[in-house]
């Protein structure tokens, strides 16, 4: 396919500029260049000329759909850039009436996977500046100030991207670039199956090792588009369901409650996992829930279809399970 990311960036900039100039959106949320190698940052622009600062590359990892929640109470029309995985968040937010469709313009972009910026930075060194990136199917060819580097997707993509099911957005008003087909992807839930095969004691040891490090910084909650309660249980002074003490018991309760609170709303965008400062594999918790949804409800990944009722958000009289 050999699609150049610079050409997609150009197309994206003109789409954003046009939307802002014509007043179809008051604000456009996209990506801008970060200050470090292989990093991008969310960019909020409200003037057409500022669209020149937008960028698109395999380092645009943030799920920007979550920022819509910050504009729930405004009258602004928001344009938001989404990859396939992020677009599932858009659908779930619309299904839950968390944001009005009339104030939303979705700009979709095809994504052949995101490069792990930490791994790439280790390889390139922190001083290297990254230029254009070309998708060569099995590799990304990255032009830098120190020459061209090839990164094999199987070694350098984020884990979630190796199991990608939506390389093209599932909902969008403007599509940037051309639809892509990334071909075969890895089997889903392989790690979850091996965790399920452990004894309760072994599984407890696995999670205790991570949860004892939890800082209770709530970065996982704050970044999560599915975490959209107006008042969060973890902020309430009472009742004291979970104390604010930082110890293994309370940290474990916090993480389990959070995973179950977003059950049916989590679309596996992997943002919690990405932002965790102590590297707790939070996707494993959410993926266990997603695996159960897949097996127990025989339902697709949440956020895949706007018309399909959310698994935990509807009732049907011909439910196959009886009241026992």
């Amino acid at each position, binding site marked *: 396919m050999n699609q150049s990311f610079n050409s997609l960036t150009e197309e994206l900039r003109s789409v954003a500029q046009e939307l802002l100039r014509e007043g179809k959106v008051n604000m456009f949320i996209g990506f801008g260049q970060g200050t470090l190698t292989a990093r991008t940052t969310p960019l909020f622009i409200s003037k057409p000329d500022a669209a020149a600062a937008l960028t698109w590359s395999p380092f645009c990892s943030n799920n920007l759909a979550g920022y819509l929640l910050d504009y729930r109470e405004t009258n602004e029309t928001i344009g938001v850039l989404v990859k396939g995985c992020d677009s599932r968040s858009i659908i779930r937010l619309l299904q839950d009436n968390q944001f009005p469709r009339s104030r939303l313009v979705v700009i979709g972009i095809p994504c052949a996977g995101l490069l792990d910026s930490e791994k790439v930075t280790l390889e390139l060194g922190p001083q290297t500046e990254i230029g254009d990136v070309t998708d060569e199917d099995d590799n990304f060819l990255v032009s830098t100030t120190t020459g061209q580097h090839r990164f094999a997707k199987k070694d350098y993509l984020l884990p979630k991207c190796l199991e990608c099911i939506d390389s093209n957005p599932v909902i969008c008003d403007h599509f940037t670039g051309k639809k892509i087909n990334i071909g075969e992807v890895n089997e889903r839930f392989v790690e979850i199956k091996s965790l399920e095969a452990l004894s*309760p004691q072994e599984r*407890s040891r696995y999670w205790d090792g991570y949860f004892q490090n939890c800082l209770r910084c709530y970065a996982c909650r704050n970044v999560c588009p599915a975490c959209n309660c107006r008042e969060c249980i973890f902020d309430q002074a009472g009742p004291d369901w979970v*104390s604010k*003490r930082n*110890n*293994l*018991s*309370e940290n*474990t*309760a916090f993480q389990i409650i959070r995973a179950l609170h977003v059950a049916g709303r989590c679309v596996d965008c992997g943002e919690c996992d990405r932002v965790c400062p102590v590297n707790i594999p939070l996707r494993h918790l959410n993926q266990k829930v997603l695996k159960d949804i897949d097996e127990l409800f025989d339902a697709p990944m949440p956020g895949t279809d706007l018309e399909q009722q959310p698994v935990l958000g509807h009732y049907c009289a011909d439910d196959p399970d009886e*009241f*026992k």
Partner: protein
Amino acid sequence: MEPERISLSWISGSEGAKFSQTVTEITEKINSLGPNKKMRDNQ
């Protein structure tokens, strides 16, 4: 946590005997397991 400590039963408002029996069974099981060590750091 030991899986035996967790139980889920569907009991309707009209099934008093079933409720009583279920609670008795769970209480006996928990007593035989002894005190829970996990998730008790606050105590």
